[in-house]
């Protein structure tokens, strides 16, 4: 290959490189303009005029960059300039190449040595290096800006810019636009932590979603002039996929959002749903306890946790108070965090080693379980169980605390167990007895069951006596009542010689008694003896006289339901003459009723939907009105309204 042919090939490659580089830089500059516009639009919001200039600016930037690169590379058109460019990079040639490519000055036959020198140069290497340098920078800039645009997502912006430009270039004033709010839709994207899917609603009058949900309302037509207002905010529409779009976040309290397009408007009730805090139920220890002596060993803590969305972690909290009278020292101990893996329902279990707690008479141990959910928008939600209080009685408590005597549950359990065994034997050996004999034995067992039932009732009375004339149910008495009910049924079945039917109940009874027996606890029952004041002796003997200031009477309570009813009545009058205005009013009434009268809010939604469809609404309004009334009073029977008893 002659030097001329080699330089010609290099020229072709260099020309190609210039063209490709021009295209690359053109595209890169265009992306830079779009990216910059997207950033400014996000931060400051671009005016319609600025939007209209985006596309021309982008095209101009692309063309400018491409032309500049082509101009810089124009030397590639000349073979001599290419040869000189190579000589510049290989000074050792001493113009041999430039001379050798001209057949008239240095024909190959006469200047063989010159051609040999020119032929030794590695033109390919020089061109390759130049190619890599020129394209490398362009490709790098292209990739960086391309990645930035992927993040910025300027598709909506460009769409809006195209519409804005079309408006500016139009020779004639745009045709009158239809209502751009017609056919609008709402896309609701719940917060990520909720793991709920996004939903799209068509022309909603009400959007119910978790607080913090991203809501995008969009419709057809240009965004200019479309706005959204609510009690605490105002937003101008931006260009969206379909035309205009308004994005907002679900607020913490219910509100009415109004979309405006010139004289058109559309009301949308925003109904925030609160993420419930975790519900934590302490299962063990079953109830509060007062130990007569310092307890030893281990006790189990167990709690059930539920959450509407997902649980993050939980732990057991212990609070140990030691001391007496006015001097107490309290230590708060949090157990290890237990990861709950976003479960909606789970159980936490822990063991407390009482031996390590250094309990002493007078110590009080409070135990509760705390759970947190995954809410990273308004939370995290915190759920707390009931607190169980384990006390160690002091010797002096005997003056103020009347510890209940040990419950006679043990003996009751033994009696029941024996009765169960005997009944079981009777069932198995039924064929050995004559009928009368069998009935007699079963009847005897029935009496024994009744005896146990009476003993259980006595224990319940003891447990539920609060010492000052009242009574209250305890966890144990509640369980014991359950057993008493079963005892009654078992007694009845035994009494009619049906021990087979009685047996399942008797097994349940034994199980309940066993549970209570194993608890083996005593209950704090305060019995302070208050001192009586001699009222007659001290009446009005005080030396200080009162200087009574004005005592204002209690304010009359505002009847929220009555006010709501009056508003509903006004809407009912409006529904036939101006259904659209009535529907709008109902949206406002519904939002205010969401917190005070949820039942009414539910009924009103139906009425709003009917009004918007042009359907009769009287029944729906009457239903809402009825939800405001107090529930009907049940009469005891005919005597109450029927007058005189016969």
């Amino acid at each position, binding site marked *: 290959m002659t030097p001329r042919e080699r330089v010609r090939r290099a020229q072709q490659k260099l020309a190609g490189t210039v063209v490709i580089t021009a295209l690359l830089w053109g595209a890169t500059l265009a992306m830079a303009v779009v990216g910059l516009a997207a950033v400014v639009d996000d931060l400051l919001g671009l005016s319609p005029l600025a939007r209209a200039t985006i596309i021309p600016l982008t095209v101009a930037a692309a063309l400018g960059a491409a032309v500049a690169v082509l101009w810089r590379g124009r030397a590639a058109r000349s073979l001599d300039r290419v040869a000189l460019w190579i000589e510049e990079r290989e000074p050792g040639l001493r113009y041999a190449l430039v001379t050798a490519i001209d057949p008239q000055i240095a024909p190959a036959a006469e200047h063989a040595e010159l051609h040999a020198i020119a032929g030794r140069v590695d033109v390919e290497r020089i061109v390759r290096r130049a190619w890599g340098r020129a394209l490398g920078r362009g490709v790098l800039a292209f990739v960086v800006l391309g990645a930035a645009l992927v993040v910025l997502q300027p598709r909506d912006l460009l769409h809006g810019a195209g519409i804005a430009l079309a408006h500016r270039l139009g020779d004639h004033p745009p045709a009158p636009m239809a209502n751009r709010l017609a056919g609008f839709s709402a896309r609701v994207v719940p917060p990520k932590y909720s793991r709920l899917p996004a939903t799209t609603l068509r022309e909603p009058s009400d959007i119910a979603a978790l607080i913090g949900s991203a809501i995008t309302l969009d419709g057809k037509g240009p965004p200019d002039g479309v706005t959204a207002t609510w009690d605490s905010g105002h937003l101008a529409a931006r260009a969206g996929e379909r035309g205009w779009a308004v994005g907002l976040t679900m607020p913490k309290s219910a509100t009415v959002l109004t979309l405006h397009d010139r004289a058109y408007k559309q009301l949308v009730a925003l109904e925030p749903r609160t993420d419930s805090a975790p519900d934590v139920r302490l299962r063990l220890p079953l109830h*509060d306890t007062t130990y007569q002596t310092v307890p030893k060993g281990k006790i189990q803590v167990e709690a059930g946790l539920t959450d509407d969305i997902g649980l993050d972690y939980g732990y057991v909290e212990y*609070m140990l*108070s030691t001391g007496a*009278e*006015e001097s*107490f020292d*309290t230590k*708060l101990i949090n157990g290890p965090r237990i990861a709950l893996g976003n479960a909606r329902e789970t159980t936490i279990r822990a063991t407390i080693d009482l031996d390590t707690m250094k309990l002493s008479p007078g110590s*009080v141990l*409070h135990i*509760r379980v705390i759970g947190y959910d995954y809410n990273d928008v308004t939370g995290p939600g915190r759920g*707390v169980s*009931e*607190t169980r*209080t384990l006390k160690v009685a002091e010797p002096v408590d005997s003056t*103020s605390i009347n510890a209940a005597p040990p419950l006679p549950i043990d003996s009751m359990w033994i009696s029941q167990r024996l009765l169960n065994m005997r009944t079981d034997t009777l069932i198995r050996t039924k064929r050995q007895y004559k009928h009368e004999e069998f009935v007699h034995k079963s009847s005897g067992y029935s009496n024994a069951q009744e005896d146990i039932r009476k003993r259980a009732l006595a224990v319940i009375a003891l447990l539920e006596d*609060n010492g*000052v004339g*009242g009574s*209250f149910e305890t966890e144990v008495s509640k369980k014991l009542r359950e057993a008493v009910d079963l005892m009654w049924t078992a007694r009845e079945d035994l009494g009619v010689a049906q021990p087979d039917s009685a047996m399942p109940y008797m097994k349940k009874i034994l199980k309940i008694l066993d549970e209570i027996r194993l608890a083996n606890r005593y209950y704090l029952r*305060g019995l*302070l003896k*208050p*001192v*009586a*004041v*001699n*009222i007659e002796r*001290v*009446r*009005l*003997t*005080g030396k*200080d006289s*009162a*200087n*009574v*200031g*004005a*005592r*204002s*009477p*209690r*304010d009359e*309570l505002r009847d929220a339901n009555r006010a709501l009813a009056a508003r509903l009545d006004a809407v009912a009058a409006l529904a036939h003459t101006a259904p659209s205005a009535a529907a709008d009013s109902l949206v406002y009434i519904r939002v205010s009723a969401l917190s005070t009268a949820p039942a009414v809010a539910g009924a009103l939604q139906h009425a709003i939907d009917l009004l918007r469809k042009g359907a009769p609404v009287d029944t729906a309004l009457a239903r809402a009105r009825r939800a405001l009334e107090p529930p009907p009073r049940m009469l005891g029977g005919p005597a109450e309204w029927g007058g005189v008893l016969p």
Partner: protein
Amino acid sequence: MSQFVFATARYASGDWESAPSLPEAVIDAVARYTTIDVAPVGVYVDISTHEIFNYPFIWLTGHLPLRFTDAERRNVKQYVERGGLLMIDDHNHDITGVFHKTANEEIERMFGKMTRLPKDHEIYKCFFVFDDGPPNTHHELNGYGDDLLHKYLDAVIVNGRVGLIYSSKDYSSEWNFHADTKKFMQQDPTKFGVNLIVYALTR
């Protein structure tokens, strides 16, 4: 009109019985300064039962953590919202103590943040007039507990009426004495108790 009965709250978690003579001293003051038909003996009422709704005013005190059970919480919330007046007094007179922390947590859980009662609130002038707000106690002046003079009481206001008062002043210590002792006192410290009861009965 039925007789006013002074009620002390009995709750599961703590030492509700820590001021046993307080009812006697306050009942004595009510009889001494007013014509209110007051029962000579107070009662202890389990706040987990509906019995609390029989009493317009309930005193609750203690040193140990105040952690309501679900039933207690439900009842107390209803009691306050339905027109009762619950006085919760920190017997530790210590805002760093467990009673203060746990009681405030419980109150906030039920009613949200409490309101500070201004010194010119009706409760300070509905019978005796206390120009400087809640009267101080010897326990505050002598620097016990948190060594602070608490100038205000906190409250839960329901429909313009005080439904719950929280005190760090330790009236439970100040008023925990036999009524007969008053004859040796220059000032009757329980007069503010009369205001509390008059407010509870008239508002």
